[in-house]
């Protein structure tokens, strides 16, 4: 096994090879949260020199980067994924192993450092062991990139995966989620928001596998689209044979702000058991003009009226967010 030191791909990188580089501790520290364990990745590669984390997180480099999170951890973890054309690298594989009986919060943020068009692919595999819970916030705000993110979430007995996904700015972004409810009483809830504009193409694919009895899943994503952009939503929930007391929900709602944007929505249920409670739905429509008229008739100007209606549309999802950092980030995007 390689040691931590050996995998420090970008260790001591700071301003070494690049004149006028933006990759300085000062620049990067602006994006870090002091109260978090901060793990910094640049173009998919882990940087020790820019990261700061305690011994409750251990990191090993195998074919992939393996991050082990110990239940003693009492801080939240911030994964900062920065992209820049200064470094020629674009693929990362990260395995996150969460110890049993842990209660962990991960904030995973994707940002870009320059305006160049780059292609990045990240593969994440998360193991949520017995009695552990993970609140997983994913904020994709990386502009001008082709960003492909795959998440494979393995949940074991009485594990709880609670995720919030926001997907905002990439030229093309693709989020693939495979969620395996492997053992009884495991639960997965994914809520999310996408804002699609400027000809963005935003893709969201979910594969939810109920492999054992007494498991529960819910996927609830809302989207707002405009400016010739496209958004794809597909969720395929599969319920295995001979398992019982399953609850599975799928819901996608979209508002299209002009006639040039397009939305494709496909909720699919594969039910092979009879003891299930399932629901699925999808709605897409334009901004409610009657609501806009009503708000304007009470003295609110058109722009503010649109903001009120859109904020109200997102409120259901927004209220599920517990982290102020995430709420502030979303607020900034909506203004």
């Amino acid at each position, binding site marked *: 096994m390689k040691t931590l030191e050996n995998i420090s791909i970008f260790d001591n990188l700071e301003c070494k090879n690049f004149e006028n580089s933006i990759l300085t501790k000062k620049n990067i520290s602006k994006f870090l949260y002091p109260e978090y364990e901060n793990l910094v990745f640049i173009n998919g590669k882990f940087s020790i020199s820019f990261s700061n984390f305690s011994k409750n997180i251990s990191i090993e480099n195998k074919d992939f980067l393996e991050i082990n999170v110990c239940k003693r951890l009492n801080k939240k973890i911030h994964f900062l994924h920065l992209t820049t054309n200064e470094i020629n690298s674009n693929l990362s594989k990260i395995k996150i192993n969460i110890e049993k009986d842990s209660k962990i919060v991960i904030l995973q943020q994707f940002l870009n450092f320059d305006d160049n068009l780059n292609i990045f692919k990240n593969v994440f595999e998360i193991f949520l062991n017995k009695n552990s819970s993970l609140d997983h916030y994913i904020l994709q705000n990386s502009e001008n990139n082709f960003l492909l993110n795959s998440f494979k979430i393995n949940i074991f007995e009485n594990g709880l995966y609670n995720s919030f996904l926001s997907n905002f700015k990439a030229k093309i972004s693709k989020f693939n989620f495979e969620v395996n409810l492997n053992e009884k009483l495991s639960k997965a809830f994914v809520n999310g928001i996408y804002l699609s504009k400027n000809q963005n193409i935003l893709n969201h694919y979910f594969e939810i596998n109920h492999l054992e009895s007494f498991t529960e899943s819910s996927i609830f994503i809302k989207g707002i689209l405009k400016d010739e952009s496209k958004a794809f939503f597909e969720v395929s929930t599969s319920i295995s044979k001979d398992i019982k007391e399953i609850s599975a929900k799928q819901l996608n709602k979209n508002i299209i702000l002009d006639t040039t944007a397009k939305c494709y929505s496909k909720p699919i249920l594969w039910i092979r058991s009879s003891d299930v409670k399932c629901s699925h739905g999808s709605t897409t429509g334009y901004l409610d003009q009657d609501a806009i*008229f*009503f*708000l304007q008739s009470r003295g609110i100007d058109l722009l503010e009226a649109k903001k009120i209606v859109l904020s109200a*549309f997102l409120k259901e999802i927004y209220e599920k967010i517990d982290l102020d950092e995430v709420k502030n980030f979303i607020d900034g995007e909506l203004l």
Partner: protein
Amino acid sequence: MLEIKNLKVKVKNNDIIKGIDIFLKKGEIHVIMGPNGSGKSTLSNVITGKNGYEIEGSISYKNEDLLKKSIDERAVLGIYQAFQYPIEIPGVNSLNFIKQSLNAIRKRKNQKPLDSIEFKNLIKEKQLELGIDDSFLKRDINVGFSGGEKKKFDILHMSILNPELIILDEIDSGLDIDALKSVAEGINKIKNGKTILIITHYQRLLNYIKPDIVHIMKDGKIVLTGGREIVNILEKEGYKSFEKTTL
């Protein structure tokens, strides 16, 4: 205060209002009565500024060309339309919205926005004045409100914004006798000095709010204008008997 001259309105090439003239002086209460499809609600929407209409003629309000104003500019000028079917907006808290709307108008009139305490005091004062409890104000706009609560919310909002021209568009529809009486009492409490245009099918609201001028509208035209006695004629003879007449 409000002058409507030779107003013609089309929707998707269909003539809805076919040339009407109405003049409302400050402080007058006018009522427009007419059967379904006569163009009454279209008229109130056109005054408020709703989109989707092809409009000819003129509407001036306090000597300003109203048709050149946006919907919100008309609200700032003091025009308030109470809707027949108040819209539900899940996700927008009723009380916060009243405050937001009041402060939006105050800001555009270069008045200082009310802070939370000032607003709380104002709303309590209006609630006491109108006899409206605040239980439904904690909910989102009109979501889960009874028909009566929707109209009370409208009247409370109206009293807070303190408009000069109030358009009541069939606010009596869907109300039982007690709720109608309660809503009418609310309007009577805030009507002093205000100009009111009531649009209704029925005479029953007029048992509580006494109009100065009554217009009968039929097939996009005002076919009769006169005093309160028209209401009694209408009750006896219905709309079919009216031709274009002025009493």
